[in-house]
C-alpha cells in the first residue's frame, strides 16, 4: 500500500508541475498574478477530474465490448459542452494527421538508410574488383 501511496504522490507532483506552468503562462497572458494556493487547488481538481475521466472511459470502452480505450471514448467524455466536443474532435483529427506524417517520414528515413547501406556495399565490391 505504501508503494501505491508513493506513486500517487509522484503523479500528483507531476500534475502540479505542469499545471503550475500552464497557470503562470495564462496569468501572465492576462496580466494578473495567481497565488500558489490557487495553483495547488487547480492541480488537485485536475487530478481528481482525471479519475472521473478514467472511470467514464473504462465504462465506454466496456460498453463497446473493448479492452482498449480509443479516441472515440475520449470524445464521448467531452459531450456535455458543444464547444469542447468540437474542439476535441478537431484536435484528434490533427493528431491523427500528425501521426500519419510522422510514420511516413520514418518510412522514408528507413528506406534512405537501407539505400545508403546498399550503395556502400556496392562501392566496396567495386573497389575489390
Amino acid at each position, binding site marked *: 500500500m505504501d508503494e501505491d501511496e508513493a506513486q500517487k504522490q509522484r503523479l500528483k507532483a507531476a500534475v502540479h508541475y505542469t499545471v503550475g506552468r500552464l497557470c503562470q503562462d495564462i496569468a501572465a497572458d492576462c496580466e494578473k498574478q495567481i497565488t500558489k494556493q490557487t495553483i495547488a487547488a487547480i492541480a488537485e481538481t485536475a487530478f481528481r477530474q482525471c479519475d472521473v475521466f478514467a472511470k467514464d472511459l473504462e465504462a465506454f470502452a466496456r460498453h463497446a465490448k473493448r479492452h482498449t480505450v480509443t479516441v472515440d471514448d475520449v470524445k464521448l467524455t467531452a459531450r456535455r459542452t458543444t464547444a469542447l466536443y468540437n474542439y*476535441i474532435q478537431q484536435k484528434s483529427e490533427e493528431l491523427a494527421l500528425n501521426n500519419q506524417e510522422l510514420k511516413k517520414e520514418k518510412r522514408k528515413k528507413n528506406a534512405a538508410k537501407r539505400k545508403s547501406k546498399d550503395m556502400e556495399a556496392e562501392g566496396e565490391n567495386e573497389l575489390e574488383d
Partner: protein
Amino acid sequence: MANAGNEVVFKKETVAKLLTRSFKEDKTKVSSDAGDAVAEMLKVFVEEATRRAVKQADSEDCDTVDIEHFEKILPQLLLDF
C-alpha cells in the same frame, strides 16, 4: 498563444499512469491516440479553470487571482466537464 515550440503539455507517460491507476479492471488499456486526446482534455480543463478564475478576479477588480475566485467558478466548471 505564445510559441508553439514552448507549448506546455501533460506528459504522455503521466497521463497513461493517471488513467490506468483509476481503472477498475487490469485488462483495460489506453490507445496511444486516446492518451494524446486525454492530455488535451486535461490541458483544456486547466486552461478553462484558470481563465474563468482570472475573469472572476477581474470582475471583482482584483489584480491577484485568489483561491476564492477559483472556488466561485468551480461548480459551473465541473458541470461543464
